[in-house]
């Protein structure tokens, strides 16, 4: 009986460890470079947008966040590209919204009201285009993007979280 209890407690602890260790920060999105061996790093920070209710929402029920994109170093622009631009996009890419031009060491500010989304930095011919056209230089996913159905959790299929 005691052994069974200890095994149960152990299993619980390990499950908890697995769950917690894999948990991304709710409000900070790490941005990573996309090229082979890229060491580019940055972050996009979400802050709840100001609301007299303490929770900013749209009529459709989306949470509204202020977004700050910070990248300390970016590679030189090449070809016809003249600017790095930050975007937010849904996982389905059915909504893509421009946040603004990204300058190394500076903060680019905007808003986002999406459920699962990614932050993308692209190299663009101009900083004000409505959609990204250039190559993706950096990207990161919101914590909500990692939600999957229960069948998709690798630990239930004998796998190990990567």
């Amino acid at each position, binding site marked *: 009986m005691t052994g069974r209890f200890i095994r149960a407690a152990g299993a619980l602890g390990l499950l908890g460890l*697995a769950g917690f*260790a894999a948990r991304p920060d*709710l409000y900070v999105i790490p941005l990573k470079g996309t090229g082979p061996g890229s060491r580019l790093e940055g972050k996009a920070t979400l802050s709840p947008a100001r609301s007299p209710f303490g929770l900013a929402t749209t009529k459709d029920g989306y949470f509204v966040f202020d977004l700050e994109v910070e990248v300390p170093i970016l590679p030189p622009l090449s070809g016809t590209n003249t600017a790095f631009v930050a975007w937010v996009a849904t996982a389905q890419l059915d909504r893509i919204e421009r946040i603004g031009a990204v300058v190394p060491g500076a903060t680019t500010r905007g808003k986002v009201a999406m459920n699962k989304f990614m932050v993308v930095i692209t190299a663009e011919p101009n900083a004000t285009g409505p959609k990204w056209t250039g190559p993706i230089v950096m990207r990161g996913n919101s914590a909500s993007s990692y939600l999957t159905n229960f069948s998709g959790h690798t630990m239930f299929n004998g796998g190990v979280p990567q």
Partner: protein
Amino acid sequence: MKRLLRGALVALGAVGTAVAQPPDTARMKHDEHAGHEGMKHGTGANRMPPMPKGMRMPPIPGLEGIAPKMVPYLPGEGMDLATVPMATPRKLLDLADGDSLELVAGFVKRKLRGKELVMYGFNGQYPGPLIRVRQSARIVVHFKNQLDMPSAVHWHGLRLDNKSDGAPGVTQDPVPVGGTFRYELYFPDPGIYWYHPHVREDIQQDLGLYGNMLVDSPEPNYYNPANDEQVVMLDDLLIDDEGILPYGKDVGNYAIMGRFGNLFLVNGEPDYRLSVNKGDVVRFLFTNVANTRTFNLSFGDNPVKLVGADIGRFEREEMVETVVIAPAQRYAIEVKFDKPGTYPIPNTVQALNNFLGEFQETVDTIGVVTVGTRPTTKDHGRTFATLRTLPQVSAEFAPYRGHFDRTPDKDLLLTVNIQGLPITLTAFMSVDTMYFPPQEWVDGMRDMNWVSTSREVHWIMRDLQTKRENMDIVWNMKVGDVVKVRMTNDGKSMHPMSHPIHFHGQRLLVVARNGIPESNLAWRDTILLPVGQTVDLLIEATNPGKWMAHCHIAEHLEAGMMMVFTVAP
């Protein structure tokens, strides 16, 4: 870390056969997603609730046969229903200074969704009587408990004498079945307030024991002129084909997320209707009396102006797109209806379906406003178009501004400890921790929430300076103190949730959220703190006594999330 995780999971696999089979997802019947087919745990009085609207989840292997460990309770069992009176809509009680009122908590019958249900009511009404008084009035309430369990009445938001606060164990003993209690109410502040039991709120309030108190200011233009004023209590009730889903008699149930209802009630009715003339301005005084649900209300394209919060008005009126109102909060808004037509009042949320890991837009219409073609009898368009700045309101905050930026005196962490649930359930919960929204709008993990009781789930207010928790916390203040409290909602716990935190007997100011100063102040008594966020508030200690502070999710209160602070004269 990856190596550690891999090792952990290999070890888990080794012990899993002995203690809990990891759920075999291949056995899940993904073609049987309608509600809970194959997953109807529990029967009769201890049955599983229906899934939230539009959500479908398959049976989860390993969870067959689970049920909450509790003694189920439903009102009226064994009673002769013929002796239970049918409830009537609330009546307005216009009371003068010095008046008294008899308030009886008892059984009533309601007919909802075609079913006759036994519920509770104050004075046989739903909601309880609407008490209307002038600011600074004093009245006496003779309370009588005709329920089948002890009770007491808390006068939410009133800065009244401590002995009348209605908090059993702190300011009075519970009123026994058949017993009485004399409350002396004092109304120092104008605005909209409410009353409800402070014994087993998860049962008594949910079953209909709530009512509003409307306190009129002597100031003639306290609120802007309006063509109509609607005092609206927002609620939800959890029912299925058999009736109301049971409560726990010995423990609180739905202890993780609270009891989300599936029948929306406005002033106790499922079908709220309002007819107005074209051009009318309507003032809505909202109170959220739901156990756990936060609403996100909107009014179509009709402009909405926010004017007041829990206790009084904002410094500056502002236009808002939606009204987000958490349990126990109140907001005063004005809406202008310019175009004839029919306008639903939707509660629109991006509901998280935890099983599928997906958000889904969910719209529940809580009422309908019909705008006629007849023009308004009195056009308030000009005043509606003006956003007032109220220097007299700002002046009330002036003495406290020096406290806004200083170091907090108190530091509270809101968190949870969950122990003793079935291991398979805990396994699911642990992988369900990848993401938590700032606000949970629906019960998207119905089975887990249903099984959890206050025996396994312990919601915690932790004083980070003393490490004391909940009722072990000792906070001593004296009248005249201004106490700055930082509250952080732990986003890394087993299951974070937003919390509406209520302080009894005093007024509060939210001065910053997540380090950003609040730019439009209003006095409050209940503050919504979303997941992973921080709020800085000031407690204006004006009212001596021993007072409660707690989460106003009724099930979180039942699961321990409460503390006491003392204000010395």
